[in-house]
């Protein structure tokens, strides 16, 4: 295709269509990293790797753009000289402006990079939601125990009568058959058709990215008598327990029923900065 073109063109010049996705993705990733939103989607180490990748993309863009400008300037000079001399090489403009490149594929591919960018900018800054917990296997006790075993959770502190731990700690204690009073931070999820008074306390464990996050889910129910004793109206508590609502839940473990009976609860206004375990 281009064998017959000017020798001066043998260092390729990147077209605007090739360069803009690099700028867009580089800038978008840096934005996600700077605002901390990247950690809602990627595990920490992968977040840092993504930033390094973004810097490479931006560097490639800057270099490519600079190269393009230099070549354009040189070409304009040559064309001016050619005009003065009364000759015009018909092929040379093609290798600069990118005309004559193969097909529409590259333009479609280039524009396709817009799709995830638009989606990304429209997403709320939050972690994986309750629907994912249900879709991805919340409630599988064997898996939950194994997941919990991957994390060190023996850092218990007492808050009142409750030992405060992470949700993995709660899951481990439950699967180990321990009857304890514990508290943990989590969000609410329910399976389809599950009664409102039965729910899961869920947090996700992130291995690499949101696509492979695994839910650690502890089945829970409200202990209405205990809640009343602490001045709560169980009906109002139940009404406020929507999916994705973040709570600090305190209760007693019932290993036989494989459930946490919630005796005290605090509703959080927003999810924590790091929603993952």
């Amino acid at each position, binding site marked *: *295709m*281009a064998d017959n073109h000017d020798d001066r*063109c*043998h*260092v*390729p*010049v*990147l077209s605007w269509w*090739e*360069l803009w*996705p*690099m700028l867009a993705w580089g800038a978008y990733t840096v934005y996600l990293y700077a605002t901390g939103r*990247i950690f809602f*989607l*990627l595990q920490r180490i*992968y977040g840092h790797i*993504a930033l*390094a*990748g*973004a810097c*490479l*993309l931006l560097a*490639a863009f800057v*270099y490519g753009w600079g*190269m393009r400008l230099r070549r354009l300037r040189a070409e304009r000079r040559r064309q001016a000289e050619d005009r003065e001399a009364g000759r015009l090489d018909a092929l040379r403009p093609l290798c600069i402006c*990118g*005309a*004559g*490149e*193969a097909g529409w594929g*590259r333009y479609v*591919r280039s524009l*396709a*990079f817009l*799709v*995830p960018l638009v*989606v990304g900018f*429209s*997403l*709320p800054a939050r972690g*994986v*939601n309750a*629907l994912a917990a*249900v*879709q*991805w*296997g919340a409630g599988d006790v*064997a*898996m939950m*125990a*194994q997941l919990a*075993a991957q994390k060190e959770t023996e850092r218990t502190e007492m808050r009142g009568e409750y030992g405060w731990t992470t949700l993995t700690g709660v899951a481990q204690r439950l699967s180990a058959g321990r009857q304890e009073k514990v508290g943990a931070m989590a969000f609410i999820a329910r399976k389809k058709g599950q009664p409102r008074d039965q729910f899961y306390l869920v947090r996700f464990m992130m*291995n*690499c*990215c*949101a*696509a*492979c996050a*695994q839910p650690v889910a502890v089945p829970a129910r409200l202990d209405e008598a205990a809640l009343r004793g602490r001045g709560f109206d169980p009906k109002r508590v139940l009404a406020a327990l929507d*999916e994705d609502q973040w709570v600090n839940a305190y209760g007693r473990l019932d290993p036989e029923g494989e459930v946490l009976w919630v005796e005290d609860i605090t509703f959080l206004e927003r999810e924590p900065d790091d929603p993952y375990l």
Partner: protein
Amino acid sequence: MARLPTGGIDRRDKVKIAVLAAAVLAIPAAIVLPWVHRHLEAFFSGARAQLFGQVLVAILLEAFPFVLIGATISGLVEVFLPPERLARLIPRRLPLRLLMAAGAGIILPVCECGIVPVARRLLRKGLPIEMAVVFMLAGPIVNPMVVASTAVAFVGQGLSLPMTVARVACGVTVAMLVGLAVYAWFGRGSARDAAPAADDAHTHSGCAEAHGRHGPDGAAGSVVANVLSHIVHDFLLLGGYLLLGSLLAAGLQAFMPRDLLVSVGKTPVLATAAMMLMAFLLNVCSEADAFLAAAFAQFSFAGRLGFLVFGPMLDVKLVAMYLGAFPKRMLLAVLLLVPPLCLTLSELAGWVVAMLMG
């Protein structure tokens, strides 16, 4: 003396026109864009759409740096490794060729996203197709990072050594068997002629790279420019296919419950097939998949091994990337042979480990 009008537009006029055009476009943009953004935000606040979006963006964010690493290696290979030198490195005997390709993943430690541009480039350079297949399939499994993460993930279950050895052994065996089959199918020689159309269309602003004119010509700037142009091209080409695969994967993750797959955990062969299907749908990076496999405690050793061997070879995003990078016959061979081989070898390895460990 007054200058005669030349009919052209000078630089100042161009700037004025650009500023005027920007001002005219800015007004509707200022109205339309916030409106579009508001509606999109409302749409993605829905649980399923949100999940779809999160998975899509997460897979891309995670995979792009590795594709970029692969594209960089690919660009360096293109510029600094002439086909003649590559030809001299290739052993004549088939078993040696396959072993060399399987071991190359240790020297070029890239994961499954990054290895596609490298394998594609080597294929274009004249690497025999059977070697490209073995390198592509075994590379992400013998990668030292992957071996280390597998060993660490299964320490708690006392399966660190058997799982790591079984993963590497099964991965290399599957890759070599597929390589042999491809060799038998394609015959001798490289697959340069059979490369997909996208390869032939690979040009940079009219400069055809396939003509071999991009070797280092002494000027450092032009070498960097050549490498860069190949990086950009590979990134865009495979990034486009990665995007397609990610869209599919995100759709499957957001709309398909995993309960059905998890429910077959205790049925021997079915469990391994289910885990392989799970690996295909989840698109987990090979450097982190061992931690996920370790969590599927209700599945047998063979099931989890199937997940670890099959995932780096085939998943939704990888199939999309293979489509853009390799000849269709090669892709067909991989699609037809990898699943049954992974299933059989995982079951066999599971049986052997069960015998050895009592």
